[in-house]
């Protein structure tokens, strides 16, 4: 009961944070030079069209009232027209978001598996050559920007070795599965098209890996050090002393507490990936939200910029809540104390 209470309070607070963010965005968007009405319909639209849209956008009202209308529209999913695509921003986002989501989820999956896997390996074989290789890799991963990885992968795995395709989400001779979620891999599975699924998977590997490299490295480092910390804890000595076999001690009694910091950081990394993704999406011609956001920034497409930032903020906040829930699930200390204090 009280865990629920904690959750509700957390969500309400997040909503307030997002409201604050919306004010910041609205102010930035409105103090920029240029007539939003003119921007919405293009430079050469007749004046009567501009006047009508000005009326529709309530641009003749005082700023706080404008904000009210803007927020109301935003809540209804209406962010106005995009300058670049000349469509409602919402349609654009509906179109581009699934591609980003698929990429980020896949990259998150790679970070989790790769990062935790390497971290465990490194901790298990601490101070051996395996550990050293993993640590070296971690440093390389942490210090190399994702776009450099992207260029490297395109050149090496795509162009030179031809292992993976480097453009788009599906090969041209493969027909896209019926859209259910917008995530092509998932849709293909839902439609039972295993070949399409594999093709989509092959396309997503390189961009996702470019994005994941940094997170994998980060996760591996954190997992390693938290496992190393916990390894000298008494409860591990106790589990061993009471005859629990080594593999159970390592794989269960050591791993679970050690994953808590990893999971927290992983969540933040995944949320941040949405924004770092733009260069990778650019390089792999991946039709995602980040690239869309970048493009709207280059074109000063304020409606689109506002929407993208708000959505990224919402994702960030949501992911944080989800991470809190997962961590609470992993760690009864947090769960129980939160319940008690709530």
């Amino acid at each position, binding site marked *: 009961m009280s865990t629920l209470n904690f959750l509700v309070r957390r969500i309400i607070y997040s909503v307030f944070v997002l409201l604050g963010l919306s004010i910041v965005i609205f102010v930035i968007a409105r103090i920029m030079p240029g007539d939003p009405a003119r921007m919405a319909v293009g430079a050469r639209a007749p004046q009567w069209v501009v006047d009508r849209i000005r009326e529709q956008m309530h641009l003749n009202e005082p700023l706080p009232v404008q904000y009210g209308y803007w927020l109301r529209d935003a809540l209804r999913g209406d962010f106005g027209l995009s300058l670049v695509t000349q469509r409602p921003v919402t349609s654009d986002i509906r179109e581009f978001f699934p591609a980003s989501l698929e990429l980020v989820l896949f990259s998150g999956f790679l970070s989790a598996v790769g990062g935790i896997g390497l971290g465990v390996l490194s901790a298990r074989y*601490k*101070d051996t050559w395996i550990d050293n290789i993993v640590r070296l890799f971690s440093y390389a991963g942490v210090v190399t920007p994702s776009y450099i990885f992207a260029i490297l992968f395109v050149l090496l795995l795509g162009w030179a070795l031809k292992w993976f395709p480097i453009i788009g989400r599906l090969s041209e001779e493969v027909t896209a599965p019926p859209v259910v979620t917008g995530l092509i891999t998932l849709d293909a599975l839902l439609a039972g098209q295993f070949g399409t699924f594999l093709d989509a998977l092959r396309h997503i590997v390189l961009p996702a890996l470019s994005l994941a490299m940094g997170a994998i490295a980060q996760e591996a480092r954190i997992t390693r050090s938290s496992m190393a910390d916990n*390894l*000298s*804890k*008494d*409860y*591990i*000595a*106790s*589990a*061993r*002393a*009471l*005859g*629990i*076999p*080594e593999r*159970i001690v390592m794989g*269960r*009694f050591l791993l*679970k*507490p050690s994953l*808590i910091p990893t999971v927290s950081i992983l969540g933040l990394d995944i949320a941040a990936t949405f924004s770092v993704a733009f260069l990778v999406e650019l390089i792999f011609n991946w039709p995602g939200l980040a690239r869309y956001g970048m493009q709207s920034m280059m074109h000063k497409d304020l409606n689109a910029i506002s929407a993208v930032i708000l959505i990224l903020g919402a994702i960030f906040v949501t992911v944080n809540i989800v991470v809190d829930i997962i961590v609470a699930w*992993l*760690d*009864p*200390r947090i769960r*129980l*104390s939160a319940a008690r204090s709530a």
Partner: protein
Amino acid sequence: MTVPPLVEIKNLHVHFSVYGGQLKVLDGVNFVMRSGEKVGLVGETGCGKTTTMKAILRVLPMPPARIPQGEIYFKGRDILKMSEGELAQIRGRGISMIFQDPTAALNPVFSIGEQLEAVIRYSSDQKKPLSPQEVHQRAIASLQEVALADPERLLRSYPIQLSGGMRQRVCIGMALATGPELLIADEPGTSLDVTIQDQILRLLRKLVEEKNTSIILITHTLGIVREMTDRVYVMYAGNMVEVAATKELFASPQHPYTRGLMDAVPRLTGGGVSDGIPGRIPNYLNPPPGCRFHPRCPQAIEICRREKPPTYKLSEAHEVACFLYADNGKGTQSS
């Protein structure tokens, strides 16, 4: 053919590697006990008691710890040379241990049930694995044994939900659930308030006597030693400085350190600030040469500064490592 002792430690050294160098925590520990014995181990905090016991079970964190020298025999077999598989046979069913701090010894992210049942499952005969129901029944029985009410609910609880006393009982229950031949109890109840500590010790004593388990009891509290043990080892800074039957030790302590301990009765708190012995446990990075106790010893003589004292046998069961007794007894130099 004599029956080998239950546990025998010969000249055990344990070092910890830290940034500054090597902490020479154990410096040639010797220890022996027979099956069925109840042995006490006393000494100030930080003198190496816990390290010695963890070494027996090979649960020291390595690295940073390492054992450059020494042998540890359990029923005649050297634990330090055992494979993981052989070691698994010893741990739990052979020797089990109650850790000093029950809060630290319980995994915070697993329920009591998950931890206790794992202990029971893996300490049972692996060729005839117990069914989950049996494991559960035994877990409940173990909790009941340590006088905990509502064991069903308890099994679902997490350590954070229990009081200190309950955690301590759970730890004891867990350590005894394996049916060990030897129980190592590291300062049970120290972190609890006196009345609860008393209850815990009574409980422990009762259980040990019922099951006729051998026990090594580590403690600060000399009163408990007097009540519960047959024989006592006194440890200082990584060495066993004196051993004797409990009654004899209390009647006539010989080593200056033991005497100091007796003066500091009833309690020796951490840090060693006691009336009897001024000063502190030495720095293990650069321990004093010769007898490690000499900087604090009121009776230190010249040789103490240079040489490490051998063990002198005062009587059949009474040995002391101090040059003051060089003339009284036949010194058996320990390497």
